[in-house]
């Protein structure tokens, strides 16, 4: 119940933000934190709750993003219709990868690598086929209206990403108190034991990767709507996969609030280093990388570990 109250308090605070903050910069920062949280939640669901570490979550992100963009650009779909369709496509790509790798019992770094390779295959394909626009990518026609999911101001986008993040939170909360969640935790801790206790390990992992991929695809749809553009590198490149795993690892793996905490810390770190380093290209990311390394060296249990120690 405490977690549910926490989620509600967070939702309220985020929803009230536009009433007090009007600066575009601050709202954009809040949106990026939430967006990063969503990607982190997706990865955390599979890795933190299910013990399956993926290095290729960009695969699901890109599939969602391209599905949303292509449905609107080529078939003239409304964005609100494209959203569930794209999420379904993302989930389907998750089921495809999951069915192949879990059927053959891939675990640990082998699973991580196969997801990485799938993301690369899709990146190369997206570069080469026509309906993704090849290397040029797809540009969403500009149509500034809530009906087209292209809001005139930041608050609209804030509410959209907040709704998606809330869905992610409720999913994690449900995992903590459902039979499926218990099965998933059992699979994470010991597959053999789980199977001996009647858990269908394969189907549990498949369902988990489908949910994770669906959240990730929703992140891809949001990206397309917010930035109006997607290309193979943005969609399937390793940067998205890294963003998805960084937050939860920093904020606390397998926890409900870890992805949010990690996203907030990393975005703040990014802003800080951007301000300190000024305009030299790359300089801010150098500082970011140094801070990341230092954080791991001196805060081995993540920021969540630090908070837990202080709280205790």
């Amino acid at each position, binding site marked *: 119940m405490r977690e549910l109250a926490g989620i509600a308090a967070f939702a309220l605070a985020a929803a009230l933000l536009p009433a007090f903050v009007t600066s575009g910069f601050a709202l954009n920062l809040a949106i990026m934190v939430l967006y990063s949280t969503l990607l982190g939640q997706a990865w955390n669901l599979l890795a933190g709750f299910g013990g399956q570490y993926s290095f290729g979550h960009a695969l699901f992100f890109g599939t969602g993003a391209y599905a949303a963009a292509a449905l609107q650009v080529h078939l003239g779909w409304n964005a609100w219709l494209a959203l569930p369709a794209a999420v379904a496509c993302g989930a389907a790509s998750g089921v495809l990868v999951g069915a192949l790798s879990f059927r053959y019992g891939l675990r640990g770094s082998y699973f991580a690598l196969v997801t990485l390779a799938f993301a690369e295959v899709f990146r190369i394909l997206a570069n080469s086929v026509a309906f993704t626009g090849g290397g040029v990518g797809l540009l969403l026609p500009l149509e500034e209206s809530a009906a087209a999911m292209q809001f005139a101001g930041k608050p609209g986008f804030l509410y959209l990403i907040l709704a998606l993040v809330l869905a992610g939170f409720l999913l994690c909360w449900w995992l903590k108190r459902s039979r499926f969640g218990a099965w998933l935790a059992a699979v994470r801790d010991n597959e053999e034991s789980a199977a001996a206790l009647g858990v269908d390990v394969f189907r549990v992992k498949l369902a988990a990767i489908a949910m994770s991929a669906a959240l990730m695809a929703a992140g891809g749809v949001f990206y397309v709507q917010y930035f109006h553009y997607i290309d193979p590198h943005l969609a399937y490149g390793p940067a998205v996969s890294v963003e998805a795993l960084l937050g939860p690892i920093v904020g606390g793996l397998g926890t409900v609030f870890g992805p949010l905490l990690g996203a907030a810390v990393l975005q703040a770190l990014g802003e800080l280093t951007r301000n300190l380093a000024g305009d030299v290209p790359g300089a801010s*990311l150098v500082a970011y990388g140094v801070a990341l390394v230092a954080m791991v060296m001196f805060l081995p249990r993540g920021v969540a570990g630090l908070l837990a120690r202080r709280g205790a």
Partner: protein
Amino acid sequence: MLDPQIVFAALLNGLTQGAVYALVALGLTLIYGVLHIINFAHGALLMAALYGVFFLNARFGVDPYAALPVMVPAMFALGYGLQRFVIGRARHGRDENVLLVTLGLAIVLENAALAAFKSDTRTIETAYTFSTVNVAGAMIAVPKAVAFLGAVAAAALMLLLVSRTDLGRAIRAVAKEPQGARLVGIDVEHVFAVSFGIGLACLGAAACFLLPAYYVNPQVGNGFVLIAITIVVLGGMGSFAGALAGGLIVGVIESLGGLWLGESLGQIGIFLAFIGILLFRPQGLFGASVGKSGRA
């Protein structure tokens, strides 16, 4: 049907490229075999080595091949220091930490290069850049032929080092049983750092052989990481002979794939082969069979 002559030339080209891949992968597989970590900064470190070779040439007029005695020890020292003072200390017994640290290092290196050298792509020109040799009727660029021979020689040297020397014995002992090695008095932290150093020394050598026929920019390493990981898996994680053979195979797949599918789609062959190997033969093409195992 393609002209057999063209296919043959593509095959040779693939082998030369594959030898350099193998050298890069050899470093990665050594690090994996001994420390059981995947070094995600491997590509970025190769990029750093390429810049090293580039500036030795541009500032001091050092021929890339003559840079070998500088680059190999320099990269070794860098690797030793990184493992001893950064990666080793950040591990805290959790593999996720290694992932984060090597990713962080990659971010630092790539962006430091971007800040210092801009995103320009640079190449060097040597007297032999455009000369070719005739191999059974196919024209091969001299730098590529040298790269092939150099990479094979370096790989052989590494195999000798690990199989014939006391240091090699210590490395193998630590790879197999770090706790046991500690008990018999081996300085495990030192061996970890030496292994990481040798892994990077491979990159130093690879950079010297690569640059005359290649280019350098801050992102150049990215393409190599995935390919090197592919090779390591293909050859069986931790296997030297496997990495060498895997490198050659990947070079050939890439070259022939490019011939039939075109430059951009050609690389897909590598990753499809990679996925296939992971699914059907995860111990690698050359690893020992894991034998009968339970269904779990």
